[in-house]
Protein backbone atom coordinates (compact mmCIF):
# COMPACT_ATOMS: atom_id res chain seq x y z
CA UNK A 1 0.00 0.00 0.00
CA UNK A 2 2.87 2.34 0.79
CA UNK A 3 4.25 1.99 -2.69
CA UNK A 4 0.94 2.29 -4.52
CA UNK A 5 1.58 5.73 -6.11
CA UNK A 6 4.77 4.69 -7.89
CA UNK A 7 3.44 1.40 -9.30
CA UNK A 8 1.45 2.86 -12.25
CA UNK A 9 4.74 4.34 -13.46
CA UNK A 10 7.06 1.46 -12.68
CA UNK A 11 4.92 -1.42 -13.98
CA UNK A 12 4.55 -0.21 -17.59
CA UNK A 13 8.19 0.88 -17.71
CA UNK A 14 9.27 -2.56 -16.52
CA UNK A 15 7.00 -4.26 -19.04
CA UNK A 16 8.48 -2.12 -21.82
CA UNK A 17 11.99 -3.15 -20.81
CA UNK A 18 11.04 -6.84 -20.66
CA UNK A 19 9.44 -6.62 -24.10
CA UNK A 20 12.76 -5.58 -25.58
CA UNK A 21 14.38 -8.79 -24.29
CA UNK A 22 11.93 -11.12 -26.00
CA UNK A 23 10.64 -9.46 -29.14
CA UNK A 24 8.23 -12.14 -30.38
CA UNK A 25 4.87 -10.57 -31.09
CA UNK A 26 2.85 -13.04 -29.04
CA UNK A 27 5.09 -12.62 -25.98
CA UNK A 28 5.00 -8.85 -26.30
CA UNK A 29 1.25 -8.85 -26.56
CA UNK A 30 0.78 -11.05 -23.48
CA UNK A 31 3.24 -8.98 -21.46
CA UNK A 32 1.57 -5.77 -22.58
CA UNK A 33 -1.86 -7.07 -21.71
CA UNK A 34 -0.70 -8.29 -18.30
CA UNK A 35 1.01 -4.98 -17.49
CA UNK A 36 -1.97 -2.95 -18.70
CA UNK A 37 -4.41 -5.05 -16.70
CA UNK A 38 -2.33 -4.77 -13.53
CA UNK A 39 -1.82 -1.05 -13.99
CA UNK A 40 -5.54 -0.50 -14.57
CA UNK A 41 -6.42 -2.56 -11.49
CA UNK A 42 -4.02 -0.56 -9.32
CA UNK A 43 -5.23 2.72 -10.80
CA UNK A 44 -8.84 1.82 -10.10
CA UNK A 45 -7.89 0.80 -6.56
CA UNK A 46 -6.26 4.21 -6.17
CA UNK A 47 -9.37 5.91 -7.55
CA UNK A 48 -11.66 4.04 -5.14
CA UNK A 49 -9.37 4.78 -2.20
CA UNK A 50 -9.13 8.45 -3.12
CA UNK A 51 -12.90 8.71 -3.35
CA UNK A 52 -12.98 7.94 0.36
CA UNK A 53 -10.53 10.69 1.30
CA UNK A 54 -7.30 8.75 0.92
CA UNK A 55 -4.27 10.56 -0.39
CA UNK A 56 -0.65 9.68 -0.37
CA UNK A 57 2.64 11.53 -0.64
CA UNK A 58 5.39 9.29 -1.97
CA UNK A 59 8.97 10.30 -1.32
CA UNK A 60 11.18 9.12 -4.16
CA UNK A 61 14.42 7.74 -2.76
CA UNK A 62 13.09 8.55 0.72
CA UNK A 63 14.13 12.21 0.55
CA UNK A 64 11.74 14.56 2.35
CA UNK A 65 9.76 17.20 0.55
CA UNK A 66 11.50 20.40 -0.44
CA UNK A 67 14.77 18.56 -1.19
CA UNK A 68 13.61 15.37 -2.80
CA UNK A 69 11.06 14.71 -5.49
CA UNK A 70 7.60 13.72 -4.29
CA UNK A 71 4.72 12.05 -6.04
CA UNK A 72 1.26 13.14 -4.98
CA UNK A 73 -1.64 10.73 -5.27
CA UNK A 74 -4.78 12.70 -4.53
CA UNK A 75 -8.22 12.67 -6.16
CA UNK A 76 -7.08 14.51 -9.28
CA UNK A 77 -4.07 12.31 -10.01
CA UNK A 78 -6.00 9.14 -9.14
CA UNK A 79 -8.74 10.08 -11.62
CA UNK A 80 -6.28 10.90 -14.38
CA UNK A 81 -4.10 7.83 -13.79
CA UNK A 82 -7.19 5.63 -13.91
CA UNK A 83 -8.31 7.20 -17.20
CA UNK A 84 -4.85 6.87 -18.72
CA UNK A 85 -4.43 3.26 -17.61
CA UNK A 86 -7.83 2.23 -18.94
CA UNK A 87 -7.20 3.95 -22.27
CA UNK A 88 -3.79 2.24 -22.28
CA UNK A 89 -5.47 -1.12 -21.84
CA UNK A 90 -7.69 -0.35 -24.82
CA UNK A 91 -4.70 0.69 -26.91
CA UNK A 92 -2.91 -2.59 -26.11
CA UNK A 93 -5.99 -4.54 -27.22
CA UNK A 94 -6.26 -2.50 -30.42
CA UNK A 95 -2.56 -2.86 -31.16
CA UNK A 96 -2.85 -6.62 -31.34
CA UNK A 97 -5.26 -6.66 -34.23
CA UNK A 98 -3.26 -4.15 -36.24
CA UNK A 99 -2.29 -5.86 -39.45
CA UNK A 100 1.45 -6.59 -39.65
CA UNK A 101 1.88 -4.42 -42.74
CA UNK A 102 0.64 -1.43 -40.79
CA UNK A 103 3.36 -1.55 -38.21
CA UNK A 104 6.58 -3.28 -37.26
CA UNK A 105 5.04 -5.02 -34.25
CA UNK A 106 8.11 -5.21 -32.05
CA UNK A 107 8.13 -1.48 -31.38
CA UNK A 108 4.48 -0.60 -31.01
CA UNK A 109 3.84 -2.48 -27.77
CA UNK A 110 6.89 -1.27 -25.80
CA UNK A 111 6.29 2.31 -26.94
CA UNK A 112 2.66 2.12 -25.78
CA UNK A 113 3.86 1.01 -22.34
CA UNK A 114 6.44 3.80 -22.13
CA UNK A 115 3.77 6.27 -23.14
CA UNK A 116 1.49 5.01 -20.33
CA UNK A 117 4.37 5.23 -17.82
CA UNK A 118 5.21 8.78 -18.90
CA UNK A 119 1.63 10.04 -18.79
CA UNK A 120 0.98 8.44 -15.40
CA UNK A 121 4.19 9.95 -14.06
CA UNK A 122 3.26 13.39 -15.34
CA UNK A 123 -0.10 13.14 -13.57
CA UNK A 124 1.45 12.02 -10.29
CA UNK A 125 4.50 14.20 -9.88
CA UNK A 126 4.54 17.31 -7.73
CA UNK A 127 7.92 18.58 -8.82
CA UNK A 128 8.41 20.97 -11.71
CA UNK A 129 11.57 19.44 -13.14
CA UNK A 130 10.29 15.91 -12.68
CA UNK A 131 7.23 17.03 -14.61
CA UNK A 132 9.57 18.09 -17.42
CA UNK A 133 11.28 14.69 -17.37
CA UNK A 134 7.97 12.80 -17.54
CA UNK A 135 6.85 15.12 -20.34
CA UNK A 136 9.97 14.14 -22.26
CA UNK A 137 9.36 10.44 -21.54
CA UNK A 138 5.83 10.60 -22.89
CA UNK A 139 6.88 12.81 -25.80
CA UNK A 140 9.71 10.55 -26.93
CA UNK A 141 7.30 7.61 -26.82
CA UNK A 142 4.76 9.64 -28.79
CA UNK A 143 7.38 10.52 -31.44
CA UNK A 144 7.94 6.82 -31.96
CA UNK A 145 4.23 6.00 -31.89
CA UNK A 146 3.32 8.73 -34.35
CA UNK A 147 5.54 7.31 -37.08
CA UNK A 148 4.51 3.69 -36.42
CA UNK A 149 3.63 2.05 -39.69
CA UNK A 150 5.72 4.49 -41.69
CA UNK A 151 4.45 6.10 -44.83
CA UNK A 152 5.01 9.60 -46.10
CA UNK A 153 2.23 11.42 -44.21
CA UNK A 154 3.35 9.98 -40.86
CA UNK A 155 7.02 10.83 -41.35
CA UNK A 156 6.24 14.39 -42.44
CA UNK A 157 3.77 14.87 -39.58
CA UNK A 158 6.39 13.43 -37.21
CA UNK A 159 9.00 15.91 -38.39
CA UNK A 160 6.74 18.88 -37.62
CA UNK A 161 5.49 17.43 -34.34
CA UNK A 162 9.00 16.72 -33.03
CA UNK A 163 10.33 20.15 -34.04
CA UNK A 164 7.43 21.94 -32.41
CA UNK A 165 7.71 19.95 -29.19
CA UNK A 166 11.48 20.46 -28.98
CA UNK A 167 10.92 24.22 -29.07
CA UNK A 168 8.22 23.70 -26.43
CA UNK A 169 10.65 21.78 -24.23
CA UNK A 170 13.20 24.59 -24.53
CA UNK A 171 10.60 27.08 -23.32
CA UNK A 172 9.63 24.72 -20.47
CA UNK A 173 13.29 24.59 -19.37
CA UNK A 174 13.66 28.38 -19.53
CA UNK A 175 10.62 28.77 -17.35
CA UNK A 176 11.67 26.07 -14.86
CA UNK A 177 15.14 27.64 -14.70
CA UNK A 178 13.72 31.11 -14.06
CA UNK A 179 11.43 29.80 -11.34
CA UNK A 180 14.31 27.99 -9.66
CA UNK A 181 16.55 31.04 -9.95
CA UNK A 182 13.91 33.25 -8.34
CA UNK A 183 12.60 30.98 -5.61
CA UNK A 184 15.30 28.37 -5.09
CA UNK A 185 12.90 25.45 -5.25
CA UNK A 186 11.17 23.28 -7.83
CA UNK A 187 8.78 21.51 -5.49
CA UNK A 188 5.29 22.73 -6.32
CA UNK A 189 4.16 22.75 -2.69
CA UNK A 190 7.24 24.63 -1.59
CA UNK A 191 6.78 27.12 -4.43
CA UNK A 192 3.46 28.32 -3.04
CA UNK A 193 4.90 30.11 -0.02
CA UNK A 194 7.96 31.34 -1.87
CA UNK A 195 5.95 32.83 -4.72
CA UNK A 196 3.93 34.80 -2.20
CA UNK A 197 7.12 36.10 -0.56
CA UNK A 198 8.44 37.66 -3.79
CA UNK A 199 7.82 41.34 -4.39
CA UNK A 200 8.56 44.13 -6.86
CA UNK A 201 10.40 43.25 -10.02
CA UNK A 202 11.16 39.69 -8.93
CA UNK A 203 7.44 39.04 -8.53
CA UNK A 204 6.88 40.33 -12.05
CA UNK A 205 9.66 38.13 -13.37
CA UNK A 206 8.07 35.17 -11.58
CA UNK A 207 4.75 35.94 -13.23
CA UNK A 208 6.52 36.04 -16.59
CA UNK A 209 8.07 32.65 -15.87
CA UNK A 210 4.64 31.31 -14.94
CA UNK A 211 3.31 32.73 -18.20
CA UNK A 212 5.99 30.88 -20.18
CA UNK A 213 5.07 27.68 -18.37
CA UNK A 214 1.39 28.17 -19.14
CA UNK A 215 2.29 28.79 -22.79
CA UNK A 216 4.02 25.42 -22.94
CA UNK A 217 1.07 23.69 -21.31
CA UNK A 218 -1.28 25.33 -23.79
CA UNK A 219 0.92 24.09 -26.63
CA UNK A 220 0.71 20.53 -25.32
CA UNK A 221 -3.01 20.84 -24.66
CA UNK A 222 -3.63 22.04 -28.22
CA UNK A 223 -5.30 25.32 -27.21
CA UNK A 224 -5.91 27.46 -30.16
CA UNK A 225 -3.22 29.74 -31.36
CA UNK A 226 -0.77 26.99 -30.40
CA UNK A 227 -2.90 23.97 -31.23
CA UNK A 228 -2.73 23.98 -35.01
CA UNK A 229 -0.36 21.00 -34.90
CA UNK A 230 -3.16 18.68 -33.83
CA UNK A 231 -5.18 18.67 -37.03
CA UNK A 232 -2.13 17.52 -38.98
CA UNK A 233 -0.93 14.98 -36.45
CA UNK A 234 -3.82 12.94 -35.04
CA UNK A 235 -5.51 12.00 -38.34
CA UNK A 236 -2.42 10.29 -39.78
CA UNK A 237 -1.69 8.00 -36.83
CA UNK A 238 -2.78 4.38 -36.70
CA UNK A 239 -5.81 3.51 -34.56
CA UNK A 240 -4.25 2.36 -31.24
CA UNK A 241 -2.00 5.42 -31.26
CA UNK A 242 -4.85 7.84 -31.97
CA UNK A 243 -6.85 6.15 -29.20
CA UNK A 244 -4.07 6.66 -26.65
CA UNK A 245 -3.20 10.17 -27.87
CA UNK A 246 -6.60 11.30 -26.60
CA UNK A 247 -5.06 11.44 -23.12
CA UNK A 248 -1.99 13.41 -24.32
CA UNK A 249 -3.71 16.78 -24.59
CA UNK A 250 -5.07 16.29 -21.07
CA UNK A 251 -1.53 16.12 -19.70
CA UNK A 252 -0.99 19.76 -20.63
CA UNK A 253 -4.23 20.80 -18.95
CA UNK A 254 -3.58 18.85 -15.76
CA UNK A 255 -0.05 20.28 -15.63
CA UNK A 256 -1.59 23.73 -15.89
CA UNK A 257 -4.08 22.96 -13.15
CA UNK A 258 -1.44 21.50 -10.83
CA UNK A 259 0.93 24.41 -11.24
CA UNK A 260 -1.79 27.02 -10.85
CA UNK A 261 -3.32 25.41 -7.77
CA UNK A 262 -0.25 24.23 -5.90
CA UNK A 263 2.15 27.01 -6.69
CA UNK A 264 -0.28 29.84 -6.22
CA UNK A 265 -0.21 31.64 -2.90
CA UNK A 266 -2.00 30.40 0.19
CA UNK A 267 -4.55 33.14 -0.27
CA UNK A 268 -6.24 30.94 -2.86
CA UNK A 269 -5.28 30.11 -6.39
CA UNK A 270 -7.66 32.43 -8.16
CA UNK A 271 -6.25 35.73 -7.01
CA UNK A 272 -2.65 34.99 -7.82
CA UNK A 273 -3.00 33.99 -11.42
CA UNK A 274 -3.46 36.87 -13.85
CA UNK A 275 -3.17 34.28 -16.61
CA UNK A 276 -6.45 32.55 -15.83
CA UNK A 277 -8.82 34.75 -17.88
CA UNK A 278 -6.48 34.33 -20.85
CA UNK A 279 -6.70 30.54 -20.51
CA UNK A 280 -10.50 30.75 -20.43
CA UNK A 281 -10.61 33.03 -23.48
CA UNK A 282 -8.32 30.79 -25.48
CA UNK A 283 -10.48 27.86 -24.40
CA UNK A 284 -13.54 29.57 -25.89
CA UNK A 285 -11.58 30.29 -29.07
CA UNK A 286 -10.49 26.64 -29.27
CA UNK A 287 -14.07 25.43 -28.79
CA UNK A 288 -15.31 27.63 -31.64
CA UNK A 289 -12.49 26.86 -34.05
CA UNK A 290 -12.79 23.14 -33.31
CA UNK A 291 -16.52 23.28 -34.07
CA UNK A 292 -15.85 25.13 -37.34
CA UNK A 293 -13.17 22.56 -38.11
CA UNK A 294 -15.73 19.81 -37.60
CA UNK A 295 -17.97 21.49 -40.16
CA UNK A 296 -15.16 21.48 -42.71
CA UNK A 297 -13.73 18.04 -41.92
CA UNK A 298 -13.34 15.84 -44.97
CA UNK A 299 -13.12 12.52 -43.12
CA UNK A 300 -14.38 11.07 -39.85
CA UNK A 301 -10.85 10.84 -38.46
CA UNK A 302 -10.40 14.57 -38.98
CA UNK A 303 -13.70 15.15 -37.25
CA UNK A 304 -12.63 13.05 -34.27
CA UNK A 305 -9.43 15.10 -34.07
CA UNK A 306 -11.46 18.29 -33.84
CA UNK A 307 -13.58 16.71 -31.12
CA UNK A 308 -10.42 16.12 -29.07
CA UNK A 309 -9.41 19.76 -29.62
CA UNK A 310 -12.86 20.96 -28.64
CA UNK A 311 -12.91 18.96 -25.41
CA UNK A 312 -9.52 20.44 -24.49
CA UNK A 313 -11.07 23.85 -25.10
CA UNK A 314 -13.99 23.06 -22.81
CA UNK A 315 -11.65 21.87 -20.04
CA UNK A 316 -9.57 25.04 -20.44
CA UNK A 317 -12.70 27.16 -20.01
CA UNK A 318 -13.59 25.31 -16.81
CA UNK A 319 -10.08 25.68 -15.41
CA UNK A 320 -9.55 29.22 -16.62
CA UNK A 321 -12.78 30.60 -15.27
CA UNK A 322 -11.16 30.16 -11.90
CA UNK A 323 -14.03 29.13 -9.69
CA UNK A 324 -14.55 25.95 -7.72
CA UNK A 325 -17.80 25.13 -9.52
CA UNK A 326 -16.51 25.62 -13.05
CA UNK A 327 -13.47 23.54 -12.11
CA UNK A 328 -15.80 20.80 -10.86
CA UNK A 329 -17.64 20.96 -14.20
CA UNK A 330 -14.37 20.50 -16.09
CA UNK A 331 -13.44 17.53 -13.91
CA UNK A 332 -16.86 15.95 -14.31
CA UNK A 333 -16.43 16.34 -18.07
CA UNK A 334 -12.99 14.73 -18.08
CA UNK A 335 -13.92 10.99 -18.14
CA UNK A 336 -16.78 11.61 -20.56
CA UNK A 337 -14.59 13.69 -22.88
CA UNK A 338 -11.76 11.15 -22.94
CA UNK A 339 -14.00 8.12 -23.49
CA UNK A 340 -16.23 9.73 -26.11
CA UNK A 341 -13.28 11.01 -28.12
CA UNK A 342 -11.46 7.68 -27.96
CA UNK A 343 -14.60 5.77 -29.01
CA UNK A 344 -15.13 8.27 -31.82
CA UNK A 345 -11.64 7.46 -33.14
CA UNK A 346 -12.49 3.74 -33.29
CA UNK A 347 -15.75 4.53 -35.04
CA UNK A 348 -14.05 6.98 -37.41
CA UNK A 349 -11.42 4.46 -38.43
CA UNK A 350 -14.13 1.86 -39.07
CA UNK A 351 -16.25 4.27 -41.09
CA UNK A 352 -13.27 5.56 -43.08
CA UNK A 353 -12.43 1.91 -43.87
CA UNK A 354 -15.89 1.46 -45.33
CA UNK A 355 -17.70 -0.42 -42.52
CA UNK A 356 -21.25 0.92 -42.32
CA UNK A 357 -23.26 -1.68 -40.44
CA UNK A 358 -25.85 -1.47 -37.68
CA UNK A 359 -23.19 -1.25 -34.97
CA UNK A 360 -21.60 1.75 -36.68
CA UNK A 361 -24.95 3.45 -37.12
CA UNK A 362 -25.96 2.99 -33.48
CA UNK A 363 -22.48 3.97 -32.34
CA UNK A 364 -22.53 7.08 -34.50
CA UNK A 365 -25.91 8.17 -33.17
CA UNK A 366 -24.86 7.61 -29.55
CA UNK A 367 -21.45 9.25 -29.91
CA UNK A 368 -22.72 12.19 -31.95
CA UNK A 369 -25.28 13.03 -29.28
CA UNK A 370 -22.70 12.48 -26.53
CA UNK A 371 -20.06 14.66 -28.19
CA UNK A 372 -22.46 17.48 -28.99
CA UNK A 373 -23.59 17.43 -25.35
CA UNK A 374 -27.19 16.36 -25.71
CA UNK A 375 -29.23 15.50 -22.61
CA UNK A 376 -28.98 11.94 -21.50
CA UNK A 377 -25.19 11.85 -21.55
CA UNK A 378 -22.96 13.07 -18.77
CA UNK A 379 -21.32 15.54 -21.14
CA UNK A 380 -24.55 17.49 -21.12
CA UNK A 381 -24.58 17.56 -17.33
CA UNK A 382 -21.01 18.82 -17.26
CA UNK A 383 -21.80 21.59 -19.72
CA UNK A 384 -24.83 22.60 -17.69
CA UNK A 385 -22.66 22.54 -14.54
CA UNK A 386 -20.18 24.87 -16.21
CA UNK A 387 -22.81 27.39 -17.30
CA UNK A 388 -24.48 27.35 -13.89
CA UNK A 389 -21.04 27.58 -12.30
CA UNK A 390 -20.29 30.81 -14.17
CA UNK A 391 -23.45 32.28 -12.64
CA UNK A 392 -22.46 31.16 -9.16
CA UNK A 393 -19.01 32.61 -9.67
CA UNK A 394 -20.50 35.97 -10.53
CA UNK A 395 -19.82 37.58 -7.18
CA UNK A 396 -16.09 37.09 -6.97
CA UNK A 397 -14.73 36.54 -10.42
CA UNK A 398 -13.90 38.00 -13.80
CA UNK A 399 -16.12 40.31 -15.73
CA UNK A 400 -19.50 39.89 -17.30
CA UNK A 401 -17.79 40.03 -20.67
CA UNK A 402 -15.92 36.84 -19.94
CA UNK A 403 -19.11 35.13 -18.79
CA UNK A 404 -20.96 36.19 -21.91
CA UNK A 405 -18.17 34.88 -24.08
CA UNK A 406 -18.08 31.58 -22.23
CA UNK A 407 -21.84 31.12 -22.62
CA UNK A 408 -21.73 32.04 -26.29
CA UNK A 409 -18.68 29.89 -26.93
CA UNK A 410 -19.96 26.77 -25.18
CA UNK A 411 -23.46 26.97 -26.64
CA UNK A 412 -22.38 27.93 -30.15
CA UNK A 413 -19.65 25.29 -30.09
CA UNK A 414 -22.13 22.58 -29.10
CA UNK A 415 -24.66 23.73 -31.71
CA UNK A 416 -22.12 23.88 -34.52
CA UNK A 417 -20.70 20.48 -33.70
CA UNK A 418 -24.22 19.04 -33.64
CA UNK A 419 -24.84 20.43 -37.13
CA UNK A 420 -21.51 19.07 -38.34
CA UNK A 421 -22.19 15.62 -36.93
CA UNK A 422 -25.73 15.55 -38.37
CA UNK A 423 -24.41 16.43 -41.81
CA UNK A 424 -21.69 13.82 -41.55
CA UNK A 425 -24.18 11.19 -40.39
CA UNK A 426 -26.46 11.88 -43.32
CA UNK A 427 -23.61 11.76 -45.76
CA UNK A 428 -22.20 8.54 -44.36
CA UNK A 429 -25.24 6.43 -43.63
CA UNK A 430 -27.82 7.64 -46.16
CA UNK A 431 -25.55 7.59 -49.20
CA UNK A 432 -24.78 4.59 -51.38
CA UNK A 433 -23.25 1.77 -49.37
CA UNK A 434 -19.49 1.70 -49.54
CA UNK A 435 -17.66 -1.59 -49.64
CA UNK A 436 -15.56 -2.51 -46.62
CA UNK A 437 -11.96 -2.36 -47.70
CA UNK A 438 -10.64 -4.32 -44.76
CA UNK A 439 -11.76 -7.41 -42.90
CA UNK A 440 -13.63 -6.99 -39.65
CA UNK A 441 -11.55 -6.17 -36.64
CA UNK A 442 -13.01 -7.92 -33.60
CA UNK A 443 -11.15 -5.98 -30.91
CA UNK A 444 -12.09 -2.62 -32.42
CA UNK A 445 -15.73 -3.69 -32.40
CA UNK A 446 -15.45 -4.90 -28.83
CA UNK A 447 -13.80 -1.67 -27.72
CA UNK A 448 -16.45 0.42 -29.44
CA UNK A 449 -19.18 -1.48 -27.62
CA UNK A 450 -17.20 -1.36 -24.37
CA UNK A 451 -16.65 2.37 -24.44
CA UNK A 452 -20.29 3.01 -25.35
CA UNK A 453 -21.33 0.95 -22.33
CA UNK A 454 -18.82 2.83 -20.18
CA UNK A 455 -20.25 6.16 -21.37
CA UNK A 456 -23.70 4.89 -20.52
CA UNK A 457 -22.52 3.79 -17.08
CA UNK A 458 -21.00 7.23 -16.51
CA UNK A 459 -24.36 8.74 -17.31
CA UNK A 460 -26.16 6.42 -14.89
CA UNK A 461 -23.57 7.11 -12.19
CA UNK A 462 -24.01 10.87 -12.54
CA UNK A 463 -24.34 11.46 -8.79
CA UNK A 464 -21.09 9.77 -7.67
CA UNK A 465 -19.20 11.33 -10.58
CA UNK A 466 -20.49 14.75 -9.63
CA UNK A 467 -19.65 14.27 -5.95
CA UNK A 468 -16.15 13.16 -6.87
CA UNK A 469 -15.70 16.16 -9.16
CA UNK A 470 -16.93 18.58 -6.49
CA UNK A 471 -14.65 17.07 -3.85
CA UNK A 472 -11.67 17.23 -6.21
CA UNK A 473 -12.41 20.85 -7.08
CA UNK A 474 -12.70 21.69 -3.38
CA UNK A 475 -9.30 20.09 -2.69
CA UNK A 476 -7.74 22.03 -5.53
CA UNK A 477 -9.30 25.35 -4.65
CA UNK A 478 -8.07 25.04 -1.06
CA UNK A 479 -4.61 23.64 -1.67
CA UNK A 480 -3.21 24.48 1.76
CA UNK A 481 -4.13 21.06 3.16
CA UNK A 482 -2.26 19.22 0.41
CA UNK A 483 0.67 21.62 0.56
CA UNK A 484 0.97 21.13 4.30
CA UNK A 485 0.73 17.39 3.87
CA UNK A 486 3.47 17.32 1.24
CA UNK A 487 5.90 19.47 3.18
CA UNK A 488 5.29 17.61 6.45
CA UNK A 489 5.69 14.06 5.18
CA UNK A 490 8.94 12.94 6.71
CA UNK A 491 11.37 10.24 5.75
CA UNK A 492 10.60 6.67 6.63
CA UNK A 493 13.15 5.14 8.95
CA UNK A 494 14.90 2.33 7.20
CA UNK A 495 15.26 -0.94 9.13
CA UNK A 496 18.36 -2.01 7.24
CA UNK A 497 20.80 0.83 7.26
CA UNK A 498 22.03 3.24 9.87
CA UNK A 499 23.07 6.67 8.68
CA UNK A 500 26.82 6.99 9.18
CA UNK A 501 28.08 9.64 11.53
CA UNK A 502 29.12 12.79 9.71
CA UNK A 503 32.84 12.75 9.03
CA UNK A 504 34.66 15.20 11.24
Amino acid sequence: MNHLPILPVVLPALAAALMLIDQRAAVQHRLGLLAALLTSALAILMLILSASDWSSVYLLGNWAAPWGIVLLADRLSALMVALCSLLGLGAVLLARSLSPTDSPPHLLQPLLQIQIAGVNGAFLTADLFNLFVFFEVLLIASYGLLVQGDGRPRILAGLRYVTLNLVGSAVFLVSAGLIYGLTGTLNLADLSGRFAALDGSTAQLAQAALGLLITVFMLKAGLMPLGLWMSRTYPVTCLPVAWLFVILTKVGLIGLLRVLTLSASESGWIASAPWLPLVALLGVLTLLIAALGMLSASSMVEMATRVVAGSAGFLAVGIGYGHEQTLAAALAYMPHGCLAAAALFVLAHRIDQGHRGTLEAIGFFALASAVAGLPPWSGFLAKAMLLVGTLAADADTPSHTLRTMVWLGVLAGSGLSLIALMRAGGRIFWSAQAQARRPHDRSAQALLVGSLLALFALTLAAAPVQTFAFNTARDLANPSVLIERMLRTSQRPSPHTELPDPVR
Partner: protein
Amino acid sequence: MIELPISGPGLMNLLLATAVAALGTVGLYLVLRARTFETVLGLTLLSYAVNLMLFAMGRLTVGRPPILDAMSDPSSPQPAMADPLPQALVLTAIVIGFAMTALLLVLAVRAHAEARTDAADPPEDRA
Protein backbone atom coordinates in the same frame (compact mmCIF):
# COMPACT_ATOMS: atom_id res chain seq x y z
CA MET B 1 22.63 55.82 -18.64
CA ILE B 2 23.45 52.17 -18.13
CA GLU B 3 26.72 51.58 -16.40
CA LEU B 4 28.54 48.61 -17.83
CA PRO B 5 30.35 46.43 -15.30
CA ILE B 6 33.81 46.18 -16.78
CA SER B 7 35.47 44.11 -14.10
CA GLY B 8 34.79 41.54 -11.41
CA PRO B 9 31.90 39.07 -11.21
CA GLY B 10 29.54 41.56 -12.89
CA LEU B 11 31.54 41.28 -16.11
CA MET B 12 31.20 37.52 -16.08
CA ASN B 13 27.43 37.84 -15.61
CA LEU B 14 27.25 40.25 -18.52
CA LEU B 15 29.31 37.96 -20.76
CA LEU B 16 27.20 34.94 -19.89
CA ALA B 17 23.94 36.81 -20.44
CA THR B 18 25.21 38.03 -23.80
CA ALA B 19 26.17 34.50 -24.80
CA VAL B 20 22.74 33.18 -23.83
CA ALA B 21 21.03 35.96 -25.75
CA ALA B 22 23.20 35.48 -28.85
CA LEU B 23 22.77 31.70 -28.90
CA GLY B 24 19.04 32.00 -28.32
CA THR B 25 18.55 34.58 -31.07
CA VAL B 26 20.57 32.67 -33.64
CA GLY B 27 18.86 29.42 -32.63
CA LEU B 28 15.38 30.90 -32.96
CA TYR B 29 16.25 32.41 -36.35
CA LEU B 30 17.50 29.06 -37.63
CA VAL B 31 14.50 27.15 -36.27
CA LEU B 32 12.26 29.38 -38.35
CA ARG B 33 14.20 28.65 -41.57
CA ALA B 34 12.60 26.50 -44.23
CA ARG B 35 15.08 23.63 -44.38
CA THR B 36 15.35 20.73 -41.99
CA PHE B 37 19.12 20.90 -41.50
CA GLU B 38 19.00 24.52 -40.46
CA THR B 39 16.08 23.76 -38.16
CA VAL B 40 18.08 21.02 -36.45
CA LEU B 41 21.08 23.34 -36.06
CA GLY B 42 18.77 26.00 -34.66
CA LEU B 43 17.31 23.61 -32.10
CA THR B 44 20.82 22.63 -31.03
CA LEU B 45 21.84 26.25 -30.53
CA LEU B 46 18.58 26.96 -28.71
CA SER B 47 19.22 24.10 -26.31
CA TYR B 48 22.78 25.42 -25.70
CA ALA B 49 21.27 28.77 -24.76
CA VAL B 50 18.76 27.11 -22.44
CA ASN B 51 21.42 24.95 -20.81
CA LEU B 52 23.69 27.93 -20.16
CA MET B 53 20.76 29.81 -18.68
CA LEU B 54 19.77 26.90 -16.44
CA PHE B 55 23.34 26.66 -15.24
CA ALA B 56 23.50 30.35 -14.44
CA MET B 57 20.30 30.11 -12.41
CA GLY B 58 22.33 28.59 -9.57
CA ARG B 59 24.31 31.87 -9.50
CA LEU B 60 27.90 32.04 -10.72
CA THR B 61 30.48 30.99 -8.16
CA VAL B 62 34.22 30.70 -8.59
CA GLY B 63 36.30 27.87 -7.16
CA ARG B 64 33.62 26.37 -4.91
CA PRO B 65 32.75 22.69 -4.80
CA PRO B 66 29.06 21.78 -5.04
CA ILE B 67 29.10 20.54 -1.45
CA LEU B 68 29.23 22.24 1.92
CA ASP B 69 32.55 21.48 3.60
CA ALA B 70 34.04 22.36 6.94
CA MET B 71 36.66 24.63 5.34
CA SER B 72 34.19 27.17 3.99
CA ASP B 73 34.08 30.49 5.79
CA PRO B 74 30.53 31.55 6.65
CA SER B 75 31.53 35.23 6.93
CA SER B 76 32.85 35.39 3.34
CA PRO B 77 30.70 37.32 0.84
CA GLN B 78 31.19 34.51 -1.66
CA PRO B 79 28.59 31.73 -1.45
CA ALA B 80 29.97 28.82 0.53
CA MET B 81 29.20 26.29 -2.19
CA ALA B 82 28.18 26.05 -5.80
CA ASP B 83 24.50 25.11 -6.14
CA PRO B 84 24.50 21.46 -7.23
CA LEU B 85 20.87 21.37 -8.36
CA PRO B 86 21.20 23.37 -11.62
CA GLN B 87 24.18 21.19 -12.50
CA ALA B 88 21.99 18.11 -12.18
CA LEU B 89 19.21 19.80 -14.17
CA VAL B 90 21.62 20.79 -16.95
CA LEU B 91 23.01 17.28 -17.13
CA THR B 92 19.49 15.87 -17.56
CA ALA B 93 18.58 18.52 -20.09
CA ILE B 94 21.76 17.85 -22.12
CA VAL B 95 21.10 14.12 -22.25
CA ILE B 96 17.47 14.56 -23.27
CA GLY B 97 18.38 17.24 -25.81
CA PHE B 98 21.00 14.99 -27.39
CA ALA B 99 18.62 12.08 -27.77
CA MET B 100 15.91 14.29 -29.22
CA THR B 101 18.29 15.88 -31.72
CA ALA B 102 19.44 12.44 -32.87
CA LEU B 103 15.82 11.38 -33.32
CA LEU B 104 15.00 14.55 -35.23
CA LEU B 105 17.98 13.96 -37.54
CA VAL B 106 16.74 10.45 -38.32
CA LEU B 107 13.29 11.83 -39.05
CA ALA B 108 14.78 14.56 -41.25
CA VAL B 109 16.69 12.00 -43.28
CA ARG B 110 13.58 9.82 -43.61
CA ALA B 111 11.49 12.83 -44.62
CA HIS B 112 14.09 13.70 -47.23
CA ALA B 113 13.90 10.17 -48.61
CA GLU B 114 10.10 10.28 -48.66
CA ALA B 115 9.53 13.76 -49.99
CA ARG B 116 12.67 14.20 -52.13
CA THR B 117 13.15 17.64 -50.61
CA ASP B 118 14.70 18.93 -47.42
CA ALA B 119 11.99 21.50 -46.86
CA ALA B 120 10.93 21.52 -43.22
CA ASP B 121 7.29 21.75 -44.24
CA PRO B 122 6.94 20.02 -47.61
CA PRO B 123 3.61 20.06 -49.45
CA GLU B 124 1.36 17.21 -48.36
CA ASP B 125 0.08 15.73 -51.59
CA ARG B 126 2.91 15.86 -54.11
CA ALA B 127 3.96 12.36 -55.08
